[in-house]
């Protein structure tokens, strides 16, 4: 293998794949990055047991030549050290030669590194997926979905399917659900797919969701999502992201979402968020971060008290329909949900002080948040 490549291009590609490279693993070769030079592209692969990221550097990008392959071949380079070396190289261009017994020479400016590589045949091969179940959405939409759902997954790894986000697809409508069984976020969106494609019980680990958003952070084109077996592949022209899916079946969440509401509150999202954040300053050290709402005519009174610290009372203007109501809940759940709502106004629907309440932006019906109150006795 012998090639020359622009340093900045290589830095970008390496930092993409190192997100998936394991630092601690039972399979030593996974601490490396697999590099394959083909005639007109360079492929880098990083992997751990859950995720794999593969990026392709084309010979020409934006009508500028960035890669010159003189001799094709492949090798596995030591991941962490290689990433650091590449970032610190002095020249604009990098010359890269792989010689006998996977010895790697990297030259840039007046610096020359000699590294010990590993044979690429030992690197596990990527899963071959049957591409029957495919749908596409813009990278921007994908990032939004991740931002609006992944915060609600359970963090405790013992919680099984609740540590992931559920994807369901029917007639081109994608529904994403995340819950830790104390609060729930559900987002719906139209995606491009074959009309008869149906997906059920596809559960993507929460960690992979955030990595997915980071990996496609700079992309603007459409992302294809392929579901096959226990794998999900997200892919653009030059970037592939594989993740393992969670096993187990996700419970039906429709039955926990209340259909009607006795008390309805409409108010400004930002003002509400700020006042809940203020109230949570008093309660956040407590176990449940409890704040109390008293909903009455045209206002919501938010109170919070702690025996050691003190208390706070604040009133906010709101459009209220229905009888008055007192309810207590965990402020953190509301803050996290409100932060993902971009709409100016929000609609909150209560059925009682013991039952979950719904929060929805007023200008769209594809987004929904649910919070269970704290039962005060």
């Amino acid at each position, binding site marked *: 293998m012998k090639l020359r490549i622009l340093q900045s291009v290589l830095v970008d590609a390496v930092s993409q794949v190192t997100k998936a490279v394991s630092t601690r693993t039972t399979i030593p070769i996974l601490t490396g990055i697999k590099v394959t030079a083909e005639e007109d592209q360079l492929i880098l692969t990083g992997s751990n047991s859950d995720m794999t990221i593969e990026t392709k550097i084309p010979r020409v990008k934006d009508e500028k030549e960035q890669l010159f392959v003189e001799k094709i071949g492949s090798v596995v380079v030591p991941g962490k050290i290689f990433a650091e070396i590449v970032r610190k190289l002095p020249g604009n261009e990098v010359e890269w030669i792989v010689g006998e017994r996977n010895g790697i020479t990297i030259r840039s400016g007046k610096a020359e590194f000699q590294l010990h590589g590993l044979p690429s045949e030992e690197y596990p091969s990527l899963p071959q997926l049957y591409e029957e179940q495919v749908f596409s959405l813009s990278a921007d939409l994908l990032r939004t979905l991740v931002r609006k759902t992944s915060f609600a997954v359970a963090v405790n790894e013992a919680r099984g399917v609740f540590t992931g986000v559920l994807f369901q697809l029917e007639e081109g409508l994608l529904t994403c659900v995340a*819950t830790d*069984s*104390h*609060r*729930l976020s559900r987002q719906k969106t139209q995606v491009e797919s074959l009309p008869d494609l149906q997906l059920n019980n596809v559960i993507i680990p929460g960690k992979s969701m955030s990595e997915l958003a980071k990996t496609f952070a700079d992309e603007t084109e459409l992302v294809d999502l392929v579901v096959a077996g226990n794998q999900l592949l997200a892919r653009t022209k030059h970037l592939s992201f594989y993740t393992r899916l969670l096993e187990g079946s996700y*419970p039906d969440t429709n*039955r*926990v979402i209340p259909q009607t509401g006795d008390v309805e509150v409409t108010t400004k999202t930002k003002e509400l968020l700020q006042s809940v954040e203020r109230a949570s300053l008093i309660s956040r050290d407590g176990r*449940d971060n409890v704040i109390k709402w008293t909903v009455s005519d045209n206002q919501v009174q938010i109170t919070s008290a702690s025996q050691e610290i003190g208390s706070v009372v604040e009133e906010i203007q709101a459009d209220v329909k229905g009888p008055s109501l007192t309810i207590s809940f*965990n402020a953190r759940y509301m803050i996290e949900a409100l932060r993902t709502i971009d709409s100016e106004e929000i609609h909150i629907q209560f059925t009682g002080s*013991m*039952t*979950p309440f719904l929060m929805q932006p007023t200008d769209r019906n594809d987004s929904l948040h*649910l919070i*269970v*109150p*704290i*039962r005060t*006795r």
Partner: protein
Amino acid sequence: MSIPHPLKGEWGGDLDKQAVFKRVAQVEEQIGELYKELGGLKSEIVHLMEENTRLTLENDQLRKLQQEVSGENASTYSGEVGQTTLHQSIGNHHLMNLYDEGFHICNVHYGRMRTDGNCLFCVAFLDKTKED
């Protein structure tokens, strides 16, 4: 257990690379086993802690019950009439009590301890039984 110094000790100062490597590999293996054992012990502790909480709760509940029973014995017998109508809701009451005692009653986590706060699925179930 003593580990000979890899450069001196048993090998008398000579750098027997093979032996050093073997020894290191051995130690690595041992550390791996220790790590596994530690993991096992940890999960055992978690198990014990869970059981402890459960027993404490059960104990409290039993004490309360005992007090109630002794209190009831002192007062008169009067609660036998109209019990047949109660039968349907007795099961639900039991479930509600279980939930209040800190257990999940939903089909998702049934019987497990509710470690932090309320559960969406349990609350939904309780609501449904209330409507019935």
